[in-house]
């Protein structure tokens, strides 16, 4: 699978995944399941193995060893870091005296303020709790490497922190990628009229900074008859649309399958999730903006100052990796509205589009609209020569 091949073809896993999805997955074990293979049925099909326990048994065995192999591979790759997460990752590391001393000094310096507040008898309960939360948040680990308990704990802290500060309740999810889901997106160039409803819906949904007018989506207005001339296009227009003699094309993060931004991050604060979303742990990002330089699609945004969203406009339905409130000096980007997409909804831009130019769905589900588009339309992607394998396709009616 690996090697040069991956740079040329995005493996939608349509064959392998489906057989696996058939809950039997006997495709390669001899006998027992032959009928299953011909059947193009999707995920829901039950095990077709019937009562022939031997064949099913062998298949189970194969599956287990697959699992073991996978585990072993991960262990070999990230080893310790996988087992040690969050606090363990920070505090339970083998170290020599020098690093230990350095770490202690650093922690003491940074934490002195927090500790003095939380230990003080004169300050109120709320202040103490706030300080305690800030302390734990400052020294938590990388979300990607946290266990489920640690993830829940940080989500709880963030919710409580918001409660203490703003006296309002928010709802934050840490829902993981669902199995056998790979999100993809298609954009119908013929339909887009440049209304930019997607842009405003995105800003509202994802709590983007209103001061700097940060927008994940850019709509490029291009002249008819000139082809895709991005450099002559206008991505910042304020006139009535659709403008005579123009067509429109939207760009945003393409959630590449081989994302250059992920490789360059020095601290693994950004990564590709199992369902194909490229996400950022805002609290782990150090703000070096290397990912921004590495992205060929202008898909990433930086918080140059503290982002501000009027309290009444804050979307309180949040996800840790998605639209929760950011701070200054960290990267952020489109997550295909992870808080919505993982809850089975369409991203805000798709829902807001008045022309139906935007199509979103599960690439591994053969019945999905996105799969229909990919199979029946002449689709293309931008800058395919870079080997990034975007999961964002364009097509025309």
């Amino acid at each position, binding site marked *: 699978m690996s090697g040069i091949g991956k740079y040329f073809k995005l493996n939608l896993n349509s064959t392998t995944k489906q057989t696996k999805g058939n809950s039997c997955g006997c495709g390669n074990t001899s006998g027992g399941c032959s009928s299953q293979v011909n059947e193009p049925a999707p995920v829901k099909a039950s095990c077709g193995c019937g009562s022939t326990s031997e064949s099913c048994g062998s298949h189970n065995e194969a599956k287990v060893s697959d699992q073991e192999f996978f585990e072993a591979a991960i262990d070999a790759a990230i080893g310790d870091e996988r087992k040690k997460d969050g606090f363990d990752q920070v505090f339970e590391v083998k170290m020599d005296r020098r690093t230990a001393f350095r770490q202690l000094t650093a922690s003491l310096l940074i934490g002195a303020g927090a500790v003095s507040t939380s230990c003080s008898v004169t300050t109120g309960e709320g202040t103490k709790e706030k300080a305690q939360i800030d302390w734990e948040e400052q020294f938590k680990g990388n979300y990607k490497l946290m266990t489920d308990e640690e993830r829940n704990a940080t989500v709880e802290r963030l919710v409580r922190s918001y409660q203490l500060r703003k006296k309002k309740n928010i709802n934050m999810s840490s829902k993981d990628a669902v199995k056998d889901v790979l999100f993809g997106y298609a954009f119908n160039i013929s339909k887009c009229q440049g209304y930019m409803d997607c842009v405003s819906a995105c800003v509202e949904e994802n709590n983007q900074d209103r001061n700097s007018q*940060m927008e994940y989506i850019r709509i490029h207005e291009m002249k008819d008859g000139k082809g895709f001339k991005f450099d002559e296009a206008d991505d910042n227009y304020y006139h009535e649309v659709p403008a005579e003699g123009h067509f429109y094309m939207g760009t945003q993060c393409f959630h590449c399958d081989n994302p250059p931004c992920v490789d360059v991050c020095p601290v693994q604060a950004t990564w590709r999730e199992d369902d194909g979303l490229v996400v950022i742990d805002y609290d782990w990002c150090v703000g070096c903006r290397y990912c*921004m330089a590495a992205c060929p699609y202008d898909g990433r945004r930086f918080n140059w100052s503290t982002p501000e969203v009027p309290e009444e406009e804050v979307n309180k339905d949040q996800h840790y990796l998605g639209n929760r409130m950011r701070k200054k000096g960290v990267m952020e980007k489109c997550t295909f509205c992870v808080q919505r997409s993982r809850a089975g909804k369409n991203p805000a831009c798709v829902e807001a589009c008045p022309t139906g130019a935007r199509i979103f769905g599960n690439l591994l589900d053969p019945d999905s609209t996105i799969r229909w588009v990919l199979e029946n339309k002449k689709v293309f992607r931008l800058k395919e020569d870079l080997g990034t394998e975007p999961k964002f396709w364009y097509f025309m009616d």
Partner: protein
Amino acid sequence: MRRLRVFKSLVIDSLDTITQGSKKYHIWMAFLTFVMLIGMYCYSMQIEYGLSVTGMTDRVSWGLYISNFTFLVGVAAAAVMLVMPTYVLKDIDFKQAVLIGEGLAVAALIMCLAFVVADMGGPSVLWHMIPGIGVFNFPASMLTWDVLVLNGYLFLNISIPFYILFRRYQGKVPNPKIYVPGAILSVFWAVAIHLVTAFLYQGLQARPFWNNALLGPRFLASAFAAGPALIILVLAVIRTFTEFKIEDKTIKKIAMIVTVAAQINLIMLVSELFKEFYAPTHHSESAYYLFFGLHGKTALLPWIWTAIPLNVLATILLTFGKLRNNFKVLYFCCFILFIAIWIEKGFGLIVPGFIPGPYGKIAEYTPTGIEIGVTLGIWALGAFIFTILAKTAIKIETGKLQFKEK
């Protein structure tokens, strides 16, 4: 125990040395302190309001800080040009200049690290990058490579001169068996720091202006021109203001290095220009923007058209041995070459990488006052550190500062 006592006395003695000096020295140090304070004030504004106080935007996301960082990595790497002949080729000429070169490398590296930290959005969570405590994305991210090689080089360049000076301070002769392996290692290391820094940019398929195979070699050539040029200027100053003896022969040898590196650099420039302008493609737009401006946007033209003539003039003057051996001409050449390469490799390299943007958008970049303030502050910091190091080193080398058993 004795070593500790010697070390303690060394620290006290060097504190004495750096706090005493002529009036000119005090004015110089006061001036640097003042600039550093301005820089710190500017940085505090940046901490308070975020990087929005700089001229950088989502379109041009690296600017003056990273430009200076890139250039200074080259200056640091150039110390090798003095280390190699002295320690490895046993050319005694350079021995006097080596400590100065290594001091320059230390100062340049500290400036590099300061520029990187100044460029960070979240300096308070920088511990995420410390291997062991944080998550170090090695070897995938070239930035982690850079962190490793820069810190390693800093360690080498501190420890080797420290060992030599520590021995001298006690009136002993440094043992070559101890420091020569380190010196040889640092020769390779210097090439590595600069190549890795070039790879930082070279490896980005998103930015065609950087994504070319010549970037690494060109980094090396320009570094080995600008770095020793700076060393010549520094040696000139030291010769005038202290009793530290630096022979004409040494300066002439370094001038030779500068000349060859500048010539190679010029050849590579020609090769680059040929490729961009003979058969221009979509990917040549950044170069067009840099040299001629695009769609009426011409912010970089004054810079690059200052740099190119200076670069060419310096290289031509240096090429003629008669002119090169005239120290007045030499110092002038070194100065303009240094300025030219600073522009070419700083502004002229980083900013056009982002212009035009991934979709052809041209948004220009101009540094703000605060950004310039922080930058000057960091340069002052570098000069301050170098002055301290050089003053102590010279005093020990000339035998004026010695450990006295009480």
